[in-house]
């Protein structure tokens, strides 16, 4: 579905992502793992349009989307979340969510001023969509609560709901389980499985290995901007270079 060909990003002399080849298959959960500073988030920024690659190509369903701005990526079906949720804390959950479907509406300034029929149906559509995705993530009862008053875990769910309200084909989740406890992590993993069952393609960055090993169909491992391994969870967990990157090398472990 999404294909990166030798994608590279340099910041000055620092190569954050180096010639990474990567594919996300339709309907799968693909995970990107790697130690801190491996370039995971930079890679996410590249495939969601927030960074322009220094070189390389990005293809979505066969079409070249290398230099598309993020809002365009969202329109063609790539939604993403952020490590920090970035929700508007003072507003109610539903008010945060209603903007998510805005990209599928066409009313402009004058529609809003005159309240044309198109405007009214589109506003209703946005509200319905918001309630629908809120139900999907299992947070319907929070609709009218201000974001600041709901727990961290619920905020993560709302952030995912917001991504879903854009009607995406591919959802990119940047560390969705950061800062929540084990129980909540399981709940979130269930939600991600549910997204897969609903026909969505998911790509996820995560540090919680157990969660990833149970969840992912395929894993890519980045280290210092380079891809060091790719494959099914079982292969990755046996891979020498992955163990080396994470634990500082097998011989070190043996020396102890």
């Amino acid at each position, binding site marked *: 579905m999404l294909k990166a060909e030798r994608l590279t990003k340099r910041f000055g002399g620092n190569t954050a992502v180096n010639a990474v080849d990567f594919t996300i298959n339709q309907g799968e959960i693909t995970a990107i793992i790697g130690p801190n500073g491996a370039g995971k988030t930079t890679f996410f920024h590249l495939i969601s349009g927030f960074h322009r690659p220094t070189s390389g190509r990005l293809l979505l369903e066969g079409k070249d989307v290398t230099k598309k701005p*993020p*809002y365009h990526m969202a329109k063609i079906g790539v939604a993403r979340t952020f490590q920090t949720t970035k*929700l508007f804390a003072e507003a109610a959950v539903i008010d945060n969510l209603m*903007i998510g479907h*805005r990209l599928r509406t066409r009313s*402009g300034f004058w529609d809003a001023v005159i309240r044309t029929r198109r405007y009214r149906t589109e506003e209703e559509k946005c509200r319905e969509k918001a309630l629908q995705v809120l139900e999907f993530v299992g947070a319907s009862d929070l609709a*009218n609560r201000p974001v600041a008053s709901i727990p961290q875990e619920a905020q993560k769910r709302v952030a995912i709901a917001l991504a879903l309200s854009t009607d995406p084909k591919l959802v990119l989740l940047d560390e969705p389980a950061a800062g929540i406890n084990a129980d909540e992590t399981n709940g979130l993993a269930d939600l991600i499985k549910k997204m897969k069952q609903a026909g969505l393609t998911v790509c996820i960055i995560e540090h919680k290995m157990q969660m990833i090993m149970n969840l992912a169909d395929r894993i890519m491992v980045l280290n210092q901007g380079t891809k060091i391994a790719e494959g099914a969870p079982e292969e990755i967990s046996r891979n020498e270079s992955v163990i080396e990157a994470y634990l500082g090398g097998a011989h070190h472990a043996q020396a102890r």
Partner: protein
Amino acid sequence: MKKNPVHNRVSKLAVPVLTLIAAAIPLLTSNTYYLDIFIKVFIWTIAVSGMNIIAGYTGQLSLAHAGFFGIGAYALGLLMTKAEMPFLPSLAIAVVLTGLVGSVVGVISLRLKGHYFAIFSLCVGVIILLIIEKWESLTEGVRGLLGIPIPKIGSLEFATISAQYYLILFFLILTLLVNRRVIHSLVGRTFLSIRNSEELAEALGINVMQSKILAFVYSTVLAGLAGALYAGYIRFLGPDIANVEHTFDMLLYLLVGGISTLWGPLVGTALVTVLMQWLQSWQEYRMIIFGPILVILVMFLPYGIIGAFVRRKMKRQWEQEMQENSIERPGMRDQRLAGGELDA
């Protein structure tokens, strides 16, 4: 979405009641001094609510608004004196022209973010002032533009101060109505989402640049409208109306009344203007009183008067909702408690 019925009724009544009171004022007093203050409050409120759209709702602090006020004012003045056009077409052209200049400035300046945008727009304001002051062949420069004819619409002549009052009141109400619709719409939500987080808005498929330009142009249009109405009322223009200090006056009104609130511009402008008039006999020394009042206000009401009011109401509404939720669920909680005991 559920809304508090009492709050709904109050906000629905507020507009017609305020309109009636405002409409009755010229009948109650013929004191030109009072009417003059009202008219100036109305004019500045229109300009400030424009500033509110870009600085408040969209979160881009524009400091060029006195400049756009000046453009609107001079456009109307020049069209009526030198081109001898009637009032309404001049007003329309003045507003459109301000919007056009606004869109050009917006396309260039909105590429910058945060403080850089604020500083750039401040410079734009100064440049506009300088153009008005130095382009003597067109604007008459510091001599000022004299002899703007009395505004006329058909056979209706706005010669008296109370006629002017109604004319400007009409545009104020129109501005507030349009603003209310824009703010409580998907367009307004788009602006707010940009203020909240440009990155998130962009990730949600919003063309942030385009929305910012829309907000900026609309805000300059309102500044231009206020300027044009001012020119039709005072009927004499000097470059000083585009002075940067007016931008900061507007910002002050906005902060006192409440940034990102619909009524903030009106309340802030009215309060500060009246206070200033009240302290007029103190001349320069009035700042000794005004300064501390402002400091206290910023310390205790950081979101302005209406802002504080709205926040308190929202908080109460949420508390009520939380209570309702907990009343609805005692059964569930009992069950959980019982389950907990069983587990133990």
